[in-house]
């Protein structure tokens, strides 16, 4: 039995949830045993949506999960995995998933396949691909035990289509303990609302220090992103300068993205930045320095000034139908 944990926000599954469904179906041979866990203070709507894709959906509904914390999610997921005797627990490798899945593995005495880009069965166990050394190395890692915990990098599988018939939704009681809520959540601040979430974006427009100011960045990078319906990304230099929020930083210390199209504008291409975007399908670089390292990973490059090229790109994009 394979358990997939559904990452959700604002009453809807995140894109990664549908990717876990695909992976889960492939691993179970779509034999009807795939089970999804939806945990939250009001998981109903998400569970109904996921039931269109998965034969069995478990909901955990508890005030302890509002907002979710690493320890409350660990309790819920470990309890579900033990109750069901799951062979594998698949979690989306969002920041939050990466935060609680190691705890789940430790609690279950299970090995952890972390942030994997591919996952297959291998005898009694599983074999996965994952990146290391700032995403320059691909590792093949295997694990077998009664249970294996896997965090799956967004984009590792295609999003699933709905199943022929809807699955069954049942509720699971989880015995939370006082220590599960010992971490208090004092406040939460959401960044970049109203724009496509970076991890979910098919197209990402990223800008670097070469834009010179927050205003120019807004006009050109954000302007082009809006024209393309794309997510906005930035380098650490831009975040350090205070032009853009940290949530948009791409790279080792920021987010990892693998969109269909990544535009790197006035970005030098430091290793720490590349590690967050080098798995993008198509990479475009615009830089005035023909020797900038970003060109080495680019499919298409324009050597030129972003102050001229980006407005021209906005115009060319506006001409698309």
């Amino acid at each position: 039995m394979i358990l997939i944990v559904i990452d959700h926000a604002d009453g809807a599954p995140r894109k990664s949830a549908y990717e876990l469904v695909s992976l889960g179906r492939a691993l179970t041979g779509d034999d009807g045993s795939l089970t999804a866990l939806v945990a939250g203070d009001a998981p109903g709507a998400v569970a109904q949506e996921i039931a269109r894709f998965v034969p069995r959906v478990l909901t955990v509904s508890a005030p302890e999960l509002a907002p979710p914390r690493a320890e409350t999610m660990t309790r819920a997921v470990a309890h579900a995995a033990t109750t069901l005797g799951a062979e594998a627990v698949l979690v989306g490798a969002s920041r939050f998933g990466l935060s609680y899945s190691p705890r789940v593995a430790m609690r279950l005495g299970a090995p952890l396949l972390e942030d994997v880009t591919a996952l297959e069965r291998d005898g009694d166990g599983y074999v996965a691909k994952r990146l290391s050394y700032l995403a320059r190395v691909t590792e093949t890692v295997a694990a077998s035990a009664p249970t294996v915990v896997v965090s799956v990098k967004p984009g590792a599988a295609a999003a699933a289509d709905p199943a022929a018939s809807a699955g069954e939704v049942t509720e699971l009681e989880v015995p939370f303990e006082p220590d599960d809520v010992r971490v208090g959540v004092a406040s939460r601040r959401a960044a970049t609302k109203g724009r496509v979430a970076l991890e979910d974006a098919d197209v990402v427009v990223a800008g670097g220090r070469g834009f010179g100011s927050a205003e120019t960045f807004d006009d050109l990078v954000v302007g082009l992103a809006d024209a393309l319906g794309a997510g906005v990304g930035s380098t650490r230099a831009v975040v350090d300068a205070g032009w853009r929020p940290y949530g948009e930083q791409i790279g080792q210390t920021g987010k990892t993205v693998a969109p269909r199209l990544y535009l790197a504008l006035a970005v030098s291409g430091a290793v720490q930045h590349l590690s967050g975007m080098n798995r993008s399908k198509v990479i475009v670089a615009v830089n005035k320095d023909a020797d900038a390292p970003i060109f080495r990973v680019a499919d298409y490059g324009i050597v030129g000034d972003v102050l001229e090229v980006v407005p021209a790109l906005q115009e060319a994009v506006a001409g698309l139908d």
Partner: protein
Amino acid sequence: MKIVTILKQVPDAEARVRASGGTLDLSGATLVIDGMDEYGVEEALRIRERGMETEIVALACGPERAAEAIRTALAMGVDRAVHVVSDVTLDAVAMARVLAGVVQDEAPELVFVGGKQADWDSSALGPALAEALGWPHADWTTELTFEDGTITVTHDIDDGTETLTLPLPAVVTTQQGLNEPRYPTLPNIMKAKRKTLEARPLADVAAAAGAPADRATELRASEIEARSRRNVVLDGDAKTAATELVRRLRDEAKVL
């Protein structure tokens, strides 16, 4: 107050990483203390410098050569260090089990771990260690303050930031933004040579912790998978190049 700060020795970001026959080759790469781990060392030093009496212990699990990274931490100002000498490249869960034993013996109030070290690209050690110890954790921390017996941290989450309060003891993973790590000064480098660096074999530490002295997962191969890129440079003035780019993205790469 006692703080344990966990370190890894990793290749410098600019170092060339090679692989052949499925194995990694780090010969020739400059090895340094991981940048993310440095933020933890620095934060511990700042806590002490703000006037709280604090003992700071560096803890690392790695091969013989990792001692150099530990010396850097000692030269930054850490009081002493424990080096679990291991020729096995442990994964995060296995390392957490082993290190939990040492942390339990040291009984600190706070453990710092780098948010994601540049060798294994893993952010699992902090949370796994916290779980092994039965402690809470906060990851990707950019701000940390103390109030009797608890800490308040601001950290990055998927859609923004969150402020948490944690009872101590706790594990905190550190990253860019928390502080600006100092460089060791020459006098401190000299002083560090006299500080205690206790080397303990993995087998002993693991046995004492009741943990396996081996990985939880099996590493089968490490390869460099260079993705082939088109590397097309588009010529002409801005308008010509931009128009050609958009045309190619639509018709050739089919991504628009």
